[in-house]
């Protein structure tokens, strides 16, 4: 067991964890933050477990909890504040950017980071940015639209 201090969605947690525990299990099982999902075995391809590590999108199934010691993690539960959805979350609702919702938290986390770095993306940029997130339901059409419209809203300052 190893003691880690990880700030998750603004709250610092101190927990003793086995070194082999995956960050995604730490989030889901220790902190009961089950919005972060697991969709692959060892390959780290599906992206459903994407969270922010110090503000950057990473796959939490490809990190050990001990590696996040001393860092800040944001999960999908941390995207909205006081019940107010982020512009991107709202855009996904408005434009039907999800169906089963399993991949959605990972996509929201990746695209939140993406929009912060690419405020005026083309559709090709968005599609390229989404490569690390597999979605089976939507054919990506409404996801691209939701991200595009969120970018417009953010640019307009309306968000």
């Amino acid at each position: 067991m190893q003691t880690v201090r990880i700030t998750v969605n603004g709250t610092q947690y101190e927990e003793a964890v086995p070194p082999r525990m995956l960050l995604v299990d730490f989030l889901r099982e220790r902190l009961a933050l089950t919005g972060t999902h697991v969709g692959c075995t060892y390959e780290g391809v599906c992206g459903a477990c994407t969270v922010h590590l110090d503000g950057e999108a990473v796959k939490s199934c490809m990190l050990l909890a001990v590696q996040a010691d001393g860092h800040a993690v944001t999960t999908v539960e941390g995207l909205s504040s006081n019940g107010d959805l982020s512009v991107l979350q709202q855009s996904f609702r408005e434009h039907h950017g999800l169906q089963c919702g399993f991949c959605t938290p990972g996509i929201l986390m990746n695209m939140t980071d993406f929009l912060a770095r690419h405020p005026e993306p083309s559709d090709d940029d968005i599609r390229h940015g989404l490569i690390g997130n597999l979605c089976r339901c939507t054919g990506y059409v409404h996801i691209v639209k939701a991200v595009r419209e969120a970018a417009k809203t953010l640019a307009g300052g309306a968000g």
Partner: protein
Amino acid sequence: MDITVQDSKRWMGARLERKEDLRLVTGQGKYLADIVLPGMLHAVFVRSEYAHARITGIDVAAARALPGVVDVITGDEIRTRVKSMRQPVVLPNLPAKYPDYHALAVDKVKFHGDPVAVVIARDKYVAEDAAELVVVDYEELPVVVDAEQALAPGAPRVHDEEADNEMFAMTFTGGATADEQMRNEAEVQRIFDTAEVVVSNRFRVHRTGITPMEPRGVLCDWSLADGLTAWITTQRPHIDRLALIDILEIPGERVRVIAPRDQGGGFGVKAPFYRENVVIAYAARKLGKPVRWIETRYESLMNVGQERDQINDVEIAATKDGRLLALRNRGIANNGTGQTGVYWGFVMPFLGQVEMPNVYTWEKGDIKLRVATTNKACLTPSRAFGHFPTRFAIERSIDIVARRCGLEPADLRRRNMVPKLPYTTITGEYFDSGDFLKVWDSLLRQIDLPAFRREQVAARAHGRYLGIGFACGAELSGVASELLVPMENQPGYGAATVRVDPRGKVLIFGGDAPGGQGHETTVAQVVASIFGIDPSDTLVTTGDTGATPFGAGTIGARAGSYFVSAVHKACAELKEKITHVLAHDLGVRATTEEFAFTNGDVIYLRDPSRRKTFREIVERIIMFPVNLPEGEVGGLEATAFFEAAKPMICFNADFCIVEVRPETGEFTIKRWATSEDVGNVINQNIVDGQMHGAIVQGLSNAIFEEFIYTDEGQQLTADFEHYKLATAADVPDIELSYASTPCPHTPLGTRGIGEGRPSSVPGALCNAICDALSPFGIEVTELPLRPSTLWAQIRDAQARQH
């Protein structure tokens, strides 16, 4: 929220934000892996490394000795304590050789991934440690993975008790008796003998399917008092419950199955009754503790989501001016082991052959299927159930006929399309309603075909190869009992309970178990439009057999056809009661039609000043059931079952434009456009989303995804690095359009949509590719469509031409 929608009737067809989405975008969805019970144990399966081998011994001592391990269960234990998986509740009423099998492998393993043992431990990491310590001794047996080899005399037998590997065979045309079928065969042969144009091709479609993003899972709890509660990722909780009752021999009142409210996609993969359900339920009962199994992606890709895998030898007889005369097909399906309850693998290719003729007016047909058992995982249903390969074969064949006749493929299709409905095809498939030609013509209005042909010629002069491809198809709009009883031994009706709450809210309970289709929203819009309330004043509960009416499950595009129709029927019953009481209270003699339910009020139309709010009148009926009309009692709750008189369909048509680079065989999809008959629309966003998803699934199946087995039956594609799903950067935008006809057989004119929709995709895509490459005379007859194989074909054609 679209606040411009005021009139209650306008809820129908609105692009309403989904009720599901607030929880799903905030990480508050509750999927199976999110459910935790106190003291819950974790299960990890030990699975076969071999495709075919005799189990000569299993040593579990080391695994049991690992601290934290609670139990290790093998096939020998399961065999003696639990009935086999082949029970009537999961057996179709079709004549097949159904293999008997147990929840864990006994004596033999029959495919790479076959479950051999299960480890139960207090910690999931430890369970995996222990699973590594289970030692299984195998004696390898000869393997058969190819369907034709499996059917050949002398092939290794997958099931020792069977004389051969032919699990199922059927003739779909000519009549019910062998004599009638032989006469038909001869008549078809005569047409071929004299036909001006005969086109014969062998079409192969690889093994692929629709893998959901959430793998499977089972959580079982056992209590002496209440028996078994099982949370299962499933599209059919009610059928699963019956299967658990029968196989584990638990009295029915002591079994409750709950499909979690949120499920990460199903697409057919979560429709069968699986062995893991039985193993986990058995373990929970034995240990008296909750036990959970969450499937890994590796297990998922080894065991489920594998479909297609057919060969179809298609022959078409036609006149030289492009009239289709006869269709002959000899289909062969590679079923894998055939060990999966409800479908047994072969039900998919069975339906695929039923749908083979598609929407064309054949004079005669001769269609036969053979299904081979092999040492692969059993086929499991995947969206475009069974007919992804047959639709590809027929739509490609149509284009080949058109090229032989020198006709525009779009014209040849139109000319042979069923002009008027209803219509029964040569295989007996019933098309209830709609207007195929209207949809087709609407599709063609989205492209200036002569202008495209000019552009194509001009481009070729510059060494650029553009092509256009068309395809179309009728899909089942829900599956009627008429088909579901023989195919799956279960009813097809839609089931719904509608309970009006004294506070003016409406609670709906459905027997289905959705996985992303948006039932909560769709039903809310229907109920809101009927009762004149806001969709937010409704709550939909699905999936819990303890709370919902018995229903077929979320299968075969039945939400928009059967489920909402059952909801409508229950609402109509309640509406009648409400107006009956209201008329009595107002002292008028009036029929239900003389009242309007709108904007939260129930209004007497002959004197609109006489009204009550919806809440007032329902509270009065539920809570103050005094001074009621004679014969009426209080309470407002109704359960209704809906079954249309006939099976129903929807229809769709696609075209796409591609550019092929002959130097590498790479291709770009420049446009994908559709026209759809979806009947009346309840939520346009949801319908659009269904189409987008289905079309991209079709593309992903056709181009990228493939389950690969070696000749030894080793499966090489059990992770997402090798089983390649299309990413957002790999697929085009989709242009949808609609030319719908309301369905006359549902109360709202709606159709069930989405299930069969991927099937037209490979035909349209490959037709476009072949159109682009027509100077080389290339006809694609195999999937997947890979640049590498296309390039090889182009190179061979160039060599022939020089």
